[in-house]
């Protein structure tokens, strides 16, 4: 067991930031043994809900650890006392439908020049998500994916400015009311438009659509985009033909791997690219170290600013694997790890690429 697999504990190395410490503090707060403080709230919100603790803990309550953290956050939301960054995150989602606070009207600005269709009862809705809609780096990867889909005949459309936050992070931040509003609105929109199959770019959206929306009547066939691509490769609809001389390691996103047990689809895609050698980081699959961006931390950033930040630890692991490309399948991981590569000054030896970008390159998709 590596205690450094817990992102907040790896960052701060105080028992308060460990899984057990967080739960004992929650109990102490609820029992009025300690008072609410900004520090207590930050400890609670620094958990990225990566589920490493649930996988590793041998005790019988392990499956409820993240639920306990989320429930404690709900208590904080109820009490109205949140870290200012969390409060801003939630306000932005409510006002603009994204955590960045950017205008709703700019949600599809990335589409310009791509000729991506809006959803009009095509086979799939491609749900882009907030990060790929607004973050300039992540936009490049969603563009690569749409071009792949177009080249290989996937029938899809996007929601454009109608798209709203999926609510996964809102849910994990403990804002149940806002999450329910988002879920109900999204489900109503999907139904109104006749959506039955959804491809998500982000594993976070994949998780919430697949595992939570059914409780609100949103029963859709949900796929992560790597699952669509791997099927196309298996069926010979996509044949990557351009050799990429690269040694690639894959970073498992928490919401694809530990939350939804999908470890193989991204790896299968990489393995099918000519000239590529797939290597593993020391911590992989269910033991993968979170990038530190989950549960809103890609925005509220309670884990940044240190060589011990999980994203920086992770890119050092990638470097140690001998890889020159760190592959990801999540726009949040993409942004977090690219920033970490700059902080670690590894730009000349390691680059982060989304699976969609790697495959597009190998298929000569411009």
């Amino acid at each position, binding site marked *: 067991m590596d*205690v450094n697999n817990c992102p907040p504990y790896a960052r701060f*190395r*105080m*028992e308060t930031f460990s899984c057990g410490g967080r739960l004992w*503090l929650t109990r102490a707060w609820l029992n009025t043994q300690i*008072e609410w403080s900004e*520090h207590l709230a930050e400890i609670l919100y620094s958990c990225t809900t990566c589920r490493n603790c649930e996988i590793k803990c041998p005790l019988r309550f392990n499956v409820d650890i993240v639920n306990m953290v989320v429930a404690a956050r709900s208590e904080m939301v109820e009490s109205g006392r949140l870290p200012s960054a969390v409060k801003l995150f939630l306000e932005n989602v409510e006002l603009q439908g994204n955590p960045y606070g950017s205008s709703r009207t700019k949600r599809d600005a990335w589409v310009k020049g791509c000729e991506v269709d809006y959803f009009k009862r095509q086979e799939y809705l491609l749900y882009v998500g907030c990060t790929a809609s607004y973050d300039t780096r992540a936009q490049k990867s969603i563009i690569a994916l749409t071009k792949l889909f177009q080249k290989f005949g996937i029938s899809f459309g996007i929601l454009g400015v109608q798209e709203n936050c999926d609510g996964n992070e809102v849910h994990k931040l403990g804002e149940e009311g806002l999450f329910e509003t988002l879920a109900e609105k999204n489900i109503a929109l999907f139904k109104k438009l006749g959506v039955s199959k959804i491809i998500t770019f982000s594993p976070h959206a994949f998780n919430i659509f697949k595992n939570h929306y059914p409780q609100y009547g949103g029963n859709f066939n949900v796929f992560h985009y790597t699952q669509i691509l791997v099927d196309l490769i298996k069926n010979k609809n996509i044949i990557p033909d351009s050799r990429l001389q690269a040694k690639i390691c894959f970073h498992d996103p928490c919401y694809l791997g530990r939350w939804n047990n999908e470890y193989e689809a991204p790896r299968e895609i990489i393995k099918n690219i000519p000239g590529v050698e797939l290597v593993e980081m020391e911590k992989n699959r269910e033991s993968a170290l979170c990038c530190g961006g989950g549960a809103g931390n890609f925005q509220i950033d309670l884990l940044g600013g240190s060589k011990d930040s999980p994203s920086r630890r992770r890119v050092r692991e990638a470097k140690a694997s001998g890889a020159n490309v760190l592959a990801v399948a999540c726009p949040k991981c993409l942004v977090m790890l690219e920033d970490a590569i700059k902080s670690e000054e590894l730009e000349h030896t390691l680059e982060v690429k989304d699976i969609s970008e790697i495959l597009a390159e190998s298929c000569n998709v411009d």
Partner: protein
Amino acid sequence: MDNILRSLADIVDETHVSNRQEELFIYSFDLGTAEPRRPDYVVSPESVEQIQAILRLANRNKIPVVPLGGGLSLAGLAVPLKGGILIDLKRMDRIIEVNEKSRYAVLECGVSQAQLTSYLEKHHPQLTHSEPGAPPTATIAGNLMIHGQGDLAQPYGFNSDLINGLEVVLPTGEICRLGSCAVGSEWFTNHPLPDINVFLGWYGTTGIITKLSMRLFPAKRIRGTGQFVVDNEELVPEILFKLTHTQMAEDIIAYSRAIPPFSDGLQHITVNIAADTEKELEWKQEVLWDDTLGEYIRNGDGAYLGFTMGLERPQISKTSDYKKGGGFEYVGSIMPIEKYPDCYRIGRKISEKHNIPYTVTGRCVGVGHSMMFAWTYAFNRAEPDTIRHAKEALHETDDIVVELGGVIWKPGIYGQKLIMERLDPATRELMKKIKKLLDPNGIMNPGNWDVK
């Protein structure tokens, strides 16, 4: 920010020092029954130089210092009884060297049992170490500090017998090395220099272990556990004697427990066996079960329950959830093997008195030279009444250990007092002189091993 906090932040950094309520609360208790006591500061250093600076600061200001490893002694040994600076050592977690040919590892003090186990499995699969039954986050140094034992205790003894060398920061801040590393750069032996190791079993009252060299052992290709059971506790000492005579086991543990109900009153004996080939395993099994214990089966006194491939680690802490709420504490003692029947009967009686399902365990240490006998008392941390019962049971057991002529293992404050009352006066005086010499201001983990 107060001056001490500022000084500590200057030594480490602001992230790794705190006097906020959250850190003071979390570091105020362990998982046992000891009363919580809050430290005034918590600090998490990453280097020996930082530890030196912290101790010098504490000495200048006469502030108590409590070193903490995994915090899993369960006996309150790192609860800051007099407040002060609690030093969380887990950040010092580098595996510095594994010498494969000479079979030893040099580790920083924060390396955990699981960290070393997984490192050896990955990088040196032919080597293993004696892993205790503690949770995997227990540190190697913490285990040595309390004279712990592991699952190679039968052939090799206490884990503290397996030390090849130590680096210690003395209470006054000097770095001191013991063993061959004190002469050169190699950490391969603790001998044959004059023995001045006064750091093990002292709970940090004489200094802080910062590095250690520990012996490693051959990891056989096949490892597994066989089980034997008898219904008469009086048979256990002679069975342990016979099993240890074969010198074929890695670990021998006798235990009895109330849960599950069908096992109540039965004495189980688990024997870990290791072999490099199927043939070797078969031969060892034949010697152990047929030749050594066959007579008990033929006489109708015992039964062989089978052999399971692979080791399950940890084992002992499994009883921790009997009362729910995650609380358990045990009295451990070092006892002669022939005391097993008395220990079992007494443990059962005390447990029943306090309405706790009984669990007793005796692990052979050395070739039958002694056993670590433990009486475990589970409690619910959320129910004060169960904690009170457990605490009373623990104190009663401490008394019994002394009455039976055993030595309490890793005693808490109550047990330390019992030992001190009975300690040879000259020995007590020597302890006093050593403490005074090394820790003139009495800052190190005060309240532990107090010599009046």
